[in-house]
């Protein structure tokens, strides 16, 4: 194994460069243009470095790579332990990929308290990457909680409408839920004496944790609650539409693109990784909630009068696929879940950017205020169409691959899962196409819309990468899946061994 210096440092660098950039921004004079350019450079630098991760990854290896493990606090025994496998690697990349686009899309829409905005954005990026890279439960919790404040401030300071209500709701929901996760972690620490993910996993596997059998269901639920709120799984989803609708564009992009994946990532890594038996045991009702989420999210999305709300509820629906895939316990289902996470990150991120672009021009998301926009804004309409089709799940675009895999996995587990889940694909076509029709087709219904300017070069620059990614992911999904597959297989192996034990 090659141990070049960069290999050892790359995770630390990728994680902390954004925050370091944020701290440097503190010292900047309030010249907005410089601040924007600097943030763009920092986020691009992070993205560039994160490409190193994929360039040198050992594709067939299931375990953690680029590991770094240093003692941080001796009592309690906390380590600075980071590493990525095929699951987290792509989520890191998704984060670093979306952040520069967020900077670009916020270029002019944020014109007040610009410095604070970009500081918060960069700090948020660090926290998000940290969530995916930490392998110490404590470190994970630390980053997990650290995402809260910048996100809540982004919503509350730069949002619109009932922004304060949305910010506080978002904060409290997540805070309260994650406290239960902390309690579970503390219990594990009290018994194992370590926060290290791998150590705890091995201890549980070897049956060395005293009193684990009695407590496991509660521990599982503790973790599950924190993640389910984040995903958000029905019926914990009520914070999401509020947060999304009121958030500034960049906030929505990161919220939908990455923050929600923290929840599904947590389910995959911790609930499945640490409590395979309980995951099996609880799979039925969780899958049921996921199915309700898929259908309910889609139906509610259909009747929304507000563009952002449509996209927000479509997230509830899509994330239901991810949870369904995870709790199908099949190779295809888990691969698909991972792929949906990435595809949803790209396409919903792009949809939110598109919604932000129209908001910048019209200061409303109301669908009734639009109509016939294809005439004054042809480029915008084209991008929107492309991304929307990706989100609907048109073959050869990224949405299709993941949903197909999830459904094929779900069918294997229980054919009803597949049948009900598959309707979600139809629903998504309904609400997105209908929205598209109302916004772009027909005559221009409001005269002032005739003079709307089309996409600026900067906006195109922000959209092109997502469009390209959506296409490449759809045409060549193996580029992604052959890194995901070994990691998923080993995650699944854990779950399958456990079932055999239960089955005896």
């Amino acid at each position, binding site marked *: 194994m090659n141990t070049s210096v960069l290999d050892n440092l790359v995770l630390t660098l990728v994680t902390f460069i954004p925050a370091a950039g944020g701290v440097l921004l503190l010292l900047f004079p309030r010249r907005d243009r410089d601040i924007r350019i600097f943030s763009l450079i920092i986020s691009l630098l992070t993205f560039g470095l994160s490409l190193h991760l994929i360039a040198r990854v050992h594709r067939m290896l299931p375990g953690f790579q680029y590991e770094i493990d240093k003692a941080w*606090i*001796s*009592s*309690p025994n906390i380590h600075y332990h980071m590493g990525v496998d095929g699951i987290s690697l792509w989520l890191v990349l998704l984060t670093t990929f979306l952040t520069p686009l967020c900077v670009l899309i916020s270029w002019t829409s944020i014109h007040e*308290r610009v410095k604070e905005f970009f500081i918060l954005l960069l700090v948020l990026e660090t926290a998000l990457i940290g969530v995916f890279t930490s392998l110490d439960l404590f470190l994970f*919790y*630390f980053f997990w*909680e*650290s995402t*809260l*404040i910048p996100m809540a*401030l982004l919503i*509350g*300071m730069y949002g619109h409408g009932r*922004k*304060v209500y949305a*910010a*506080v709701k978002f*904060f*409290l929901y997540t*805070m*309260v839920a994650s*406290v*239960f996760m*902390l*309690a579970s972690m*503390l*219990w594990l*620490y*009290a018994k194992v004496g370590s926060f290290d993910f791998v150590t705890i996993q091995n201890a549980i596997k070897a049956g060395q944790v005293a009193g684990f059998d009695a407590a496991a269901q509660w521990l599982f639920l503790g973790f599950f609650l924190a993640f389910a709120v984040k995903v958000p799984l029905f019926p914990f989803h009520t914070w999401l539409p509020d947060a999304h609708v009121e958030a500034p564009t960049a906030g929505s992009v990161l919220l939908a693109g990455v923050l929600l994946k923290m929840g599904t990532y947590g389910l995959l890594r911790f609930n499945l990784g640490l409590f395979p038996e309980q995951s099996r045991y609880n799979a039925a009702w969780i899958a049921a909630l996921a199915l309700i989420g898929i259908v309910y999210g889609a139906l509610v999305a259909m009747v929304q009068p507000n563009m952002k709300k449509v996209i927000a509820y479509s997230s509830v629906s899509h994330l239901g696929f991810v949870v369904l895939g995870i709790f199908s316990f099949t190779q295809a289902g888990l691969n698909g879940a991972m792929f949906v996470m990435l595809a949803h990150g790209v396409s919903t991120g792009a949809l939110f950017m598109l919604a932000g672009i129209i908001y910048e021009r019209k200061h409303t998301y109301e669908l009734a205020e639009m109509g016939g926009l294809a005439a004054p804004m042809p480029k915008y309409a084209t991008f929107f169409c492309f991304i929307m089709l990706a989100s609907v799940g048109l073959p050869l675009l990224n949405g299709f691959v993941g949903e197909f895999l999830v459904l094929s996995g779900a069918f294997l587990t229980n054919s009803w899962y597949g049948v009900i889940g598959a309707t979600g694909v139809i629903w998504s076509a309904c609400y997105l196409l209908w929205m598209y029709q109302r916004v772009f087709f027909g005559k221009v219904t409001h005269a002032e819309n005739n003079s709307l300017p089309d996409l600026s070069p900067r906006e195109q620059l922000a959209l092109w990468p997502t469009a390209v990614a959506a296409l490449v992911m759809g045409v060549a999904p193996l580029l992604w899946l052959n890194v995901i597959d070994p990691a998923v297989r080993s995650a699944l192996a854990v779950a399958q061994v456990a079932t055999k034990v239960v089955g005896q």
Partner: protein
Amino acid sequence: MNQTIPAAADYIRILPEIVLSIFGLVIMAVDPFIDQDKDQKSLGALGLAGTVAALISTWVMAQSPGLAFWNMVRVDGFSVFFHVLVIAIAIVLILTSYEYMAVQKLHAGEYYGLILFGLVGMCLMSSAVELVLIFIALEISSISTYILAGFRRRSATSSESSLKYFLLGSFATAFFLYGVALMFGATGSTNIDEISTVQNSGQVPVLAYVAMALMFVGLGFKVAAAPFHVWTPDVYEGAPAPVVGFMSTAPKAAAFAVLLRILFEANAPGRFWFIWISAALSMTLGNVAALVQDNVKRLLAYSSIAHAGYMLVAFAAIPELGTSAVMFYAASYAAMNVGAFAVVSHFANSGERYVTVKDYAGLGRRSPVLAGALALFLISLIGIPVTGGFFAKFYVFSAALQSNLVGLTIIGVINSAIGAYYYLKLIVMMYMREATEDVPVLPIPASLAAALAITLAATIYLGIAPGPVLGYAQRSAKQMLQRESPNEQAQHSASQGDAN
């Protein structure tokens, strides 16, 4: 009892107290000769010099650990820890008061003197191992604080605060004294070592239980633990803001030190359930009442009751784990709360006019530094990572879990979630609301900047590298608990773990 004349080493073991008394007396002596309007700050400088000198002499004291004055005072890691803590709090208090006194047009003379005298009491509380001396130290500290609470003497609320505090406080100390007397009756001694010998011998007289309960009432009042907390909001609302920051941390820390010594070192019998109940009540009442407060000082008063509750959770845990958790909690709570009150007292402006939550609207825009600092302290009070407040709660709850106190931990965890709401309310005010009326924000003077820098650095340091402080607390806790019964150290093991 050994009746020899005290040796030089005895005096070194109370050197900080001596230094503080001398500086306090000098301030009182110099005061009449000073032009009240112009040279107030020189008194503050003198006070600052006194506290810094006390800090240095604490270092000197730490070099010669041991008993002094006929086994009444013990210098060990534990007492050094609390010495440093209360003196550091006082330094920040003096730095905060510097400008505050001028803005409020208060006569500063005895103010700084009283702070130093109060410190003498608090320092002594942490090193006294003799109940009578503890009582005297408690009185020294309390009387200074009673007066400090009423220092805005032109304000009716401040006088009310002082009087209320005084009356109820005297009542509480009477309870404590009564407990001391009964303890003497029960065990034939007022020395903590000797008391612990009796308690550990197996035959615990019933009277000792009563004595313990009475002492707990007295100290429970001092730390503002429910159900002895009712004075807190009124007193905190009226007292000068910097003093509240001081009152809610330094005398509290000292009282917690006494509680630790009495409950753990003396191995108090039957402590478990009343601590359990008091902890659960303090956390719940404090947090729930704080939800509806409009006045920032009252809000922080209820929050301090809640925090006393979190600390009490650790008292129900296994002594080795609980002691270090309380010590760490006291330190980080001091950093964040004194810091928060530094901001509140600066923002309050003359006559403490701006103390409601609404006044803070839009502070993030008008004074990014003040708002940023306060936000960080509040985040720490919520208990979010990277801040001392997080590790403080973390250690307390993990100590509780390791002692199998699952019920109390759950109550605590739910409470910290409730607590998030009202701290957040203030952050939301500062950053997400626009000011409705024009609240002037004074420029930040250098002394306040120093106070904020110290408290911010401490809050973040404890949040990033809690290791050294916690390590020190654990070592000194171990040292203190091992000496529980000097005569029969070997006999005593960790057997008296917990009632649970």
